[in-house]
């Protein structure tokens, strides 16, 4: 493995680890606030206990997210100094604003977690809302920096390097809005499903447990609403990518030859050497239609650029299929949930339904990971699309394989520990519930 691949894998594992906590940081505070609010409205004490239990989750995941976010801000400099030297002044706005949002999130979370008995109820709830707002703002701002890497604007690039820098234009790049909406919805969908899934698991062990029933319904409602809207945002994202990064779209869809009236692959394993796709189903006209709203539209294929400049086709294609497949599955589960809630609420406690939700715990996060693989791998070989190649940004420091190995060990340990702490937190909450009767 060469240094470039090791550095890319290290960055990928760090982003892949952090994104889970970033999603939780964006969406989980809102669940905690919703439960608190329902308690204040209805006086039903189970929602107070639910809010307290979720707040503990927010606390531990926020703290780990702060740590993994620190890792990322170090790694940007440790692995990609060539990128940071030029990109820092251009995309500094979203980073510094994100720092502000993160700071406010930390303070508000401190107030919410420890202020239950010390603050007036309204102020306490408001501090929770601020946690949620700042969490979403921080996520959306970081996405702006990624949007810029995919759709770089706000500078002139010539032989002398970057000039005429306009950080505001860079922040408001073309990719930002679509990426930010897609990411925010993904956070709410994945966290809603994951939280509901954990409660479903516990309900299978302890049927009709009050807290878990309330938790499952509230979290799944939030997750389902986000999952149902997500396809619209996905469609906008695909059209945006078709405009800005046609070769990323071509890699996602294993579309090798430029043509009109192009079909869409569902599933399949591409072979970039023979330029074919095996085991897939092709729906005629659909890619042209989805990308350009016209079944006859021309879609550029990978043949337009030299073979060496292709993004890794297999990875992009498979990741994209996984993301879309899971998204569709989540829409299906969402429709089922809403229908059951409306017509057959008693079936919401049926073990088969609980099993379905329990097994869906990780699916949202898998889709989020797959989506980020599409975004990041699909941008290769560029770190700043069309401007700077990833290898140009790499540190001259040798032996990145070692730091990759250390990074992987650290993430493995952290994951195991988080799992342990999290299980014990749930057991603790259940013990307290039992005491409440």
């Amino acid at each position, binding site marked *: 493995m060469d240094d470039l691949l090791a550095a890319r894998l290290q960055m990928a594992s760090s982003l892949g680890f952090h994104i889970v906590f970033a999603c939780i940081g964006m969406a989980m505070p809102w669940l905690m606030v919703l439960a608190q609010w329902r308690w204040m409205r209805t006086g039903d004490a189970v929602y107070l206990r639910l809010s*307290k239990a979720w707040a503990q989750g927010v606390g531990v995941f926020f703290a780990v997210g702060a740590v993994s976010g620190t890792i990322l801000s170090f790694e940007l400099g*440790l692995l990609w100094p060539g990128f940071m*030297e030029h990109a820092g002044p251009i995309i500094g706005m979203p980073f510094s604003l994100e720092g502000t949002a993160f700071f406010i999130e930390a*303070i508000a979370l*401190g*107030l919410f977690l420890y202020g239950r008995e010390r603050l007036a109820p309204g102020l306490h709830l408001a501090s929770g809302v601020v946690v949620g707002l700042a969490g979403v703002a921080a996520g959306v701002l970081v996405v702006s920096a990624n949007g810029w890497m995919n759709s770089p604007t706000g500078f002139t690039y010539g032989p002398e390097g970057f000039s005429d820098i306009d950080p505001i234009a860079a922040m408001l790049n073309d990719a930002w809005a679509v990426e930010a909406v897609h990411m925010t919805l993904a956070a709410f969908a994945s966290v809603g499903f994951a939280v509901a899934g954990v409660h479903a698991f516990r309900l299978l062990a302890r049927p009709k447990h009050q807290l878990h029933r309330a938790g499952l319904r509230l979290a799944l409602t939030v997750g389902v609403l986000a999952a149902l809207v997500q396809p619209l945002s996905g469609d906008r994202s695909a059209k945006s990518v078709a405009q800005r990064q046609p070769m990323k779209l071509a890699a996602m869809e294993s579309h090798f030859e430029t043509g009109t009236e192009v079909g869409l692959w569902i599933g399949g394993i591409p072979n970039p050497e023979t330029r074919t796709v095996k085991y897939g189903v092709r729906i005629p006209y659909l890619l042209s239609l989805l990308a350009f709203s016209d079944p006859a539209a021309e879609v550029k294929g990978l043949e337009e650029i030299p073979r060496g400049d292709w993004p890794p086709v297999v990875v992009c294609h498979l990741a994209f299929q996984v993301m879309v497949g899971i998204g569709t599955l989540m829409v299906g589960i969402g429709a089922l949930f809403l229908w059951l809630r409306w017509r057959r609420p008693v079936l919401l406690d049926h073990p088969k339904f609980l099993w379905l939700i329990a097994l869906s715990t990780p699916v949202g996060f898998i889709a989020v990971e797959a989506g980020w693989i599409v975004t990041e791998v699909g941008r290769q070989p560029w770190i700043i699309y069309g401007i700077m190649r990833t290898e140009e940004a790499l540190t001259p420091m040798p032996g990145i394989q070692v730091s990759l190995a250390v990074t992987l060990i650290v993430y493995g340990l952290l994951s195991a520990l988080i799992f342990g702490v999290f299980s014990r937190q749930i057991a603790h909450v259940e013990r307290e519930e039992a005491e409440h009767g």
Partner: protein
Amino acid sequence: MADLILAAIGVSLYLYMLFGGADFGAGILELFLGERAEPYVDRALSPVWETNHVWLILAMVLCFVGFPLAFTTITTYLHLPLLLVLLGIVARGAAFTFRHYDPAPGGTRVWYNRVFRASSLLTPFFLGVTVAAISGGRLNTRLGDGFYAVFVAPWLGVFPVTLGVFVCSLCVFVATAFLAAERGKEAKGGLHYLRFARRTHLLSVVSGAIVLVAAWVDEAPIAAEFLASPIALTCAVLATILIPLIAWSFHEARVSWLRVAVSAQLALILAGYGVTQYPVLVRLADTPDITVNLAAAPQVTLCLLAGVLGFGLVLILPALFLLLRVYKLRQIPEVSRHPENPAPNPYGD
């Protein structure tokens, strides 16, 4: 404008040394005091600990947006000590979080403690090593010289190591002084903290003196420039004058004086360092040093950055004030009434 951003970096590093340093020091303190210190450390840190490390992130963001060349030079050629700092921050943050949130840690608690304490010592040590290497004038940017000469030798020297030790002892001193300030008025146990703080003060004064000697021995340019700069010398003199004042505060148990004097002494040490360095950001061995003018981002970036900073301060300062007020001020009497209070139960009751 570049100077304003630089000043902001200095202030956030100062706040990091003060609050984050107290965090590290508390962990090092546990190394010495063991289980006895733990409830107080946990109690003193828990509600605000997440915010303390944000100061380092803030300094880093200001640096890579405002002075990208300085940032990338540091991250490239001091990759290894920074990686160790990072590992320390990760291990420490994780261990502290799990220790705090784990409702039934059982046997893992021993490991949380060990990792927390060890990383509390290693992180500030390598931060000190990194800072020394940045100003030591040994950074070698000729990649052809080989791995050891470029990536190891510049930070593996007498001056960096002594500065690392000095930073650690400062952390312990700040932590013990703050703990003593909080608990010094107690009849029982308070004197213990005051005595301990006095000893750590002596430790930091001695290790600070050793740093100056080491810089001179190591021929770090900072030693000569320190002596040549009147402002830096004034800072040093003022910091020295504070030593007897702090000693007096210990003796008389004047805890509010102690708090102010310790904060001021730390500020003077950092200001003296900054003034000596200015306008150099990173000292290199052969090539010209990286100065403020060389590294500064375009004016428009710096102005916007200053704008964001001002906007952020308007939002953050009142919130931070509220947080500190709600917790620090109301919590301490509660602890004092129950000196044998166990670690707080984050789950409420």
